[in-house]
């Protein structure tokens, strides 16, 4: 049953999963927010979930970061535990109950970022192998300089792990951040074909990019399944 769930129409659940990925500053969260607003205003049955947000696990990750206790392996495992909690208690049950699930970052974040910390790809792919395959994975890509400038402009100070300071790339946080994001972007680029990413140009005007995103969603997913009062419409 599960082995064929990546084929269109053969998933074991009636829901659908839309994912956005990309480095910090690529515009992915803004675009997913706008997609979400469009669907919310339209009354669609949907659920939104963010990376690293499980109420059960999050505080442990936060403490580990604050006290700098995390190694590449424990960083990765804690984020996997967080994802497992959301996957088993939110994402999977909602997909089975016919929801449209939107995820701001998904397992590809772990593949790209934790690999940049030195974790082996085989190990990472195994670790998160329980994740359902998304119906659409939007990969937002902006030139490194553009993305980094967007982040640096809005932050008083980059956080230790966010800037990849644990990798000893540079003593300067902005410089380390830039190099770390570059490595992550390379890893994302390597996944485009293998993981069926839909490439989105993060330098396109926000409203035009959102139009593209909505068009792709409507092309690929039968949105009537998630529309309000779908059942009544059928029965009338």
């Amino acid at each position: 049953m599960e082995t064929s769930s990546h084929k269109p129409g053969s998933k074991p659940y009636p829901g659908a999963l839309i994912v956005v990925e990309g480095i910090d500053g690529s515009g992915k969260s803004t675009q997913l927010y706008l997609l979400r607003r469009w669907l919310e205003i339209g009354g669609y049955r949907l659920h939104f979930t963010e990376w690293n947000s499980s109420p059960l696990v999050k505080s442990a990750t936060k403490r580990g970061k604050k006290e700098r206790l995390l190694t590449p392996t424990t960083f990765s495992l804690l984020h996997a535990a967080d994802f497992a909690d959301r996957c088993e208690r939110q994402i999977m049950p909602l997909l089975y109950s016919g929801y449209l699930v939107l995820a701001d970052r998904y397992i590809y974040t772990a593949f790209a970022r934790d690999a940049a910390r030195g974790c082996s790809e085989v190990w990472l792919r195994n670790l998160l192998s329980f994740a359902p395959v998304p119906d659409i994975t939007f990969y937002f890509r902006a030139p490194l300089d553009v993305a980094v400038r967007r982040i640096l402009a809005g932050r008083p100070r980059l956080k230790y792990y966010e800037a990849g300071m644990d990798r000893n790339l540079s003593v300067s946080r902005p410089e380390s951040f830039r190099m770390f994001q570059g490595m992550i972007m390379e890893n994302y680029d390597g996944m485009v074909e293998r993981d069926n990413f839909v490439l989105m140009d993060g330098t396109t005007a926000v409203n035009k990019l959102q139009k593209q995103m909505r068009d792709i969603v409507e092309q690929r997913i039968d949105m009537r399944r998630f529309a309000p009062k779908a059942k009544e419409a059928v029965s009338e």
Partner: protein
Amino acid sequence: MTAPVDEVLSRPGEAPPPEPEMAPQTPIQERTGAEDVGTLGLPLVGVDTRDLKGSLIVLEGADGSGRSTQILFLTEWLESEGFAVRTMGLRRSALVAEKIDFMLARNLVTRRTLALMYATDFYDQLERSIVPALRSGMVVLADRYIYTLIARGAVRGLERPYLECIYAMALRPSLAFWIDVRPEVAFEREFKKSNAINYWEAGLDMSLSSNLYESFIIYQSRIRAELRHLAESQGFIAVEGEGSVSAVNKDLRQRIASHLGIKPGRYTPSRALEPLWR
């Protein structure tokens, strides 16, 4: 809801995914004490494990097997022999031990999340406590190791290859013991400890039986079968755990002494530990 590795790894029309790159596992008994402590398969990220000189001695066994008691005596004996000892166990990491206690107490957590929290707990101890200890030549006594964690996940339906791959960066034990007791004996021992049976030790999360005794026996029998399988395939030394504490301890000391290249000698427990010496 679980999906096999190849669901994420492969796409229709593509070549099948590569097998996880696991080094062929050498049974522990074929190794000698002089060899460096390496990992079970994948390299431990960011940690050089080539120059670890100490000994990693693992004691596995179900709840009520007498493992922790044996660790107390072994620690005292090794220290009296002049060895610096460090211990590890489950839920002892600085990073997430309290968090796991919280999760277990609330029973909020699903099996996979719990398995991954235990993996975090394991690697935190391994990387920040055990590796430095071995590098400085200490003897590490592990009160349970990855094998219990694999067994617990496997009886709850998590895939064995999934669990084995997660722990492929764990250090290979220098010496591993499986202390075996029948679940019926373990039940009595565990009950006497606190005049009750612990929710998780009875596997109540698995809804095996509403009869607590039955649930304990079924659950612990499944754990025992998993551990037996692991012990046999990994070359553990099986120790019959239903004998007296002193008899089991003598057996363990002889094996460990021979591994460390010392004479087993006589050992008399300190007054502090005497009450446990039966």
